[in-house]
């Protein structure tokens, strides 16, 4: 029955994207609020969930789109950003991958603007560039700042800037682009991966676009145009003829309807479901709105986050948390803020789980979905939870007392505290076969409430359900 209702919603684009109004089928309850923060941010502490439960969906989504006034550690937003920028800047032109990763993870844990970080991560995957070849933290950081500045901004500006981004051009071996030898690599990726997807361009389009990009170089880590190396003859790209230069290509790509659909398909799997393949008809309203807005990224994102479909219980647990969501979300939900975990240890854990930030496997980014899950990554996930709750682990442990956390939010009796942890962490509903043994174990160890809650938290963090969002 549940599947049937999804089906009808997915088959009815008008209803699917219509603004969400709480109803019996789609109540605005703690599960819905937790879902919103899990998908649009990196999960949220109990206080935030309770606040948003009170304020309702409109205000909550608006706050995600605009960002909070302060970071999770209480620092005013602007101050937090400039502090983090300074930290990242300090890495300079080194090859310090772990440092880069740590700064970004720290930013994700405390960010006043979780949705913007979430989108920055999406663009990092979309415009996947790896330190493995770039070997320069400063350039990677500069690209990261670019992705963040346009995370919810203007896709044309983003696509145009990424074509001149030194890290991207080094990564794609496109630092030398002579008239006599047009480098097709960037021209290919910009169509295949960044804007259109396969099947929406020809090899000839790539060759012609490559000619437009001639004269673009990276010299001494900086983008540079060498006019005498530019082929200024006429080119025909996607049916449009002109004396195009590289600056003309992004808008030619964006004129293709395939571009809006390509990006919206990505947004669908990022925010709605990795396990439904949306029809063209379902994506059409999103894509049309995206184009009509002049490719303002905020437009389809906002439509999704405010939609009936997004709040339909049928799409819960239809994404596998990526390692970054898993680790950052755990730390944020459980308020491991003061002191917080060592970000470098978190970065290492993410790498063991298969997601080294700034080191995606190829220009196509990570594989997502089921690909995150294998025996070694599952052990890495389990060990992250075990480390957080351990007394031995200096980098991650000794900071979290689930009983105290629950009590702070008014749940002092062990069974209440377990229910609190389940509501906070697990996209529900939690079946009795799962919940009851945890409750039973807690009751059996009631004499030592703190240890019992620690056991319960360990079990909850290791639930297969916890891997899903």
């Amino acid at each position, binding site marked *: 029955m549940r599947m049937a209702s999804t089906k009808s919603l997915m088959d009815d684009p008008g209803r699917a994207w219509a603004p969400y109004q709480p109803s019996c089928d789609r109540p605005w309850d703690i599960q819905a609020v937790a879902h919103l923060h899990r998908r649009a941010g990196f999960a949220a502490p109990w206080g935030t969930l309770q606040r948003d439960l009170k304020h309702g969906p409109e205000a909550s989504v608006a706050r995600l789109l605009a960002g909070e006034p302060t970071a999770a550690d209480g620092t005013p937003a602007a101050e937090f950003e400039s502090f983090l920028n300074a930290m990242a800047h300090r890495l300079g032109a080194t090859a310090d991958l772990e440092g880069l990763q740590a700064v970004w993870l720290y930013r994700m844990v405390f960010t006043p603007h979780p949705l913007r970080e979430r989108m920055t991560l999406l663009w990092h995957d979309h415009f996947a560039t790896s330190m493995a070849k770039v070997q320069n933290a400063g350039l990677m950081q500069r690209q990261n700042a670019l992705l963040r500045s346009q995370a919810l901004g203007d896709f044309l500006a983003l696509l145009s800037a990424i074509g001149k981004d030194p890290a991207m051009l080094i990564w794609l071996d496109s630092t030398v682009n002579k008239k006599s030898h047009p480098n097709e*690599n960037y021209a290919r990726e910009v169509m295949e991966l960044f804007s259109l997807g396969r099947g929406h361009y020809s090899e000839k389009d790539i060759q012609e676009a490559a000619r437009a990009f001639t004269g673009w170089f990276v010299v001494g880590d900086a983008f540079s145009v060498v006019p005498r190396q530019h082929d200024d003859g006429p080119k025909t790209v996607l049916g449009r003829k002109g004396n195009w230069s590289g600056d003309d290509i992004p808008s030619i790509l964006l004129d293709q309807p395939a571009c809006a659909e390509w990006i919206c398909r990505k947004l669908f799997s990022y925010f709605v479901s990795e396990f439904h393949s949306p029809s063209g008809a379902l994506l059409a309203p999103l894509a049309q709105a995206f184009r009509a807005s002049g490719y303002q990224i905020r437009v389809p994102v906002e439509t999704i986050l405010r939609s009936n479909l997004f709040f339909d219980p049928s799409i819960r647990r239809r994404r596998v948390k990526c390692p970054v969501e898993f680790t950052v979300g755990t730390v944020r939900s459980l308020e491991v803020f003061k002191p917080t975990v060592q970000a470098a240890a978190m970065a290492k854990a993410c790498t063991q789980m298969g997601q080294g930030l700034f080191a995606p496997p190829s*220009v196509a980014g990570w594989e997502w979905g*089921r*690909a995150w*899950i294998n025996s070694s990554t599952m052990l890495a996930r*389990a060990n992250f939870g075990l480390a957080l709750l351990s007394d031995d682990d200096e980098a991650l442990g000794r900071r979290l007392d689930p009983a105290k956390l629950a009590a702070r939010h008014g749940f002092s009796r062990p069974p209440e505290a377990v229910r609190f942890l389940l509501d906070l962490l697990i996209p529900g509903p939690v079946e009795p076969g799962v919940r009851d043994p945890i409750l039973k174990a807690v009751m059996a160890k009631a004499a030592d409430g703190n240890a019992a809650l620690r056991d319960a938290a360990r079990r909850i963090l290791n639930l297969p359900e916890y891997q899903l969002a």
Partner: protein
Amino acid sequence: MTSNRRRFLKSSLASSTLVAMGAATVPEFLGRSARAAVAVDKAGPSSRKSDERILVVVQLLGGNDGLNTVVPHGIDGYNRGRRTLRIGSSQVQKITPEIGLHPAMGGMGKLLEKNRLAIVQGVGYPNPDRSHFRSMEIWEVGRLANDARTLETGWLGRAIDQKGRRPGEDPPAMHVGGRSLPQALRSRHTEVPALESLAGYKLQLTGTDAERRAERSALGEMAAAERKRDDPVLGFIRQTTLSAYESSSRLEQVASKAGKSRYPNFGLAKRLEMIAQIIKAGFGTRIFYTSLDGFDTHANQLATHAALLTELSDSIAAFHEDLADAGQADRVALLTFSEFGRRVAENASLGTDHGAAAPVFLVGPVAKAGLIGAHPTFDDLDDGDLKHHTDFRRVYASLLTDWLDCPTEPVLGPGFNPLPLLRKA
């Protein structure tokens, strides 16, 4: 598949025996349930076969001096080129009247006597490149083209891609050691994990043995507990979770039975010991990759090289013995290679410079032990370097077709016939 999975979950995971069995035996139960999952759900993600053949690659970084490893002590050209670095007939372990192993390689000599070592001579590729970086890239990529697309993957990475991805199973390959992921293992679809210690493959539970056992059972029960709603995504994660716990417990059992290590105290030996533990624990991983650094011997080569060859030879010998004792030696083949050999003529610093063709070692159930192919001639050098007569991709082709059951052409391109190096199953 869904109904199979449902049947599997109903029949084994959720059975009431779990409760009745009690905590102490739950790890074994989990082991059986994961195997049961394989039996019932053949198309499912975690089919584990622990009897499959395994390839271990040991990369010698820096360019190993092949001439002083497999020494042509009876050939004039060698003795003319190596006035001070020459290893004489009286020192080598003879393989043929003209050729013998470096004296530090006693362990490898014994493997040869036991018919477990094949040495392919004169291996290389056309137009040899003397740059470490580029030549390593060629060997690791397994193709000569150097466009960006070709360089995205390595030969073993493409082999992994050929085998298809079955999410949920043990990783198809592991990189053992601290170096960043070798190009050889870069795959389009699979992130090959790096293993610096076994800790990453164990559930990091704390407390006494009994506490750890109880905790593992509790975690396993949480994954195994019955869910009424059928959900293939969740079912897949539950199955993988159980098989991860099982892997961890197998590894701990092997480690606890291991007793005192019989491996020599070398870095390479420790890495191979880890690999052996994983193999003995029955993991489904079929490719292991590790390396030994320091072969770029431009100066005062003799002692350095002897020490490296001791480490290489003793470590491999211990590894082989360990596997043989466990009855696993016949499913493991070990390949050593280096990006190039070294120049025939020694330099003025008692060392040798970058060269070209060199021998590779293959340890395991070899088809024919001893030397394969002639020693490259000294009468027709390429700019002072030995010319190859056997393309390295033919060695790879043998390992792919006869060992890993992987088609050669999509990995290496057309035209590389396998050599008869390994006994086929």
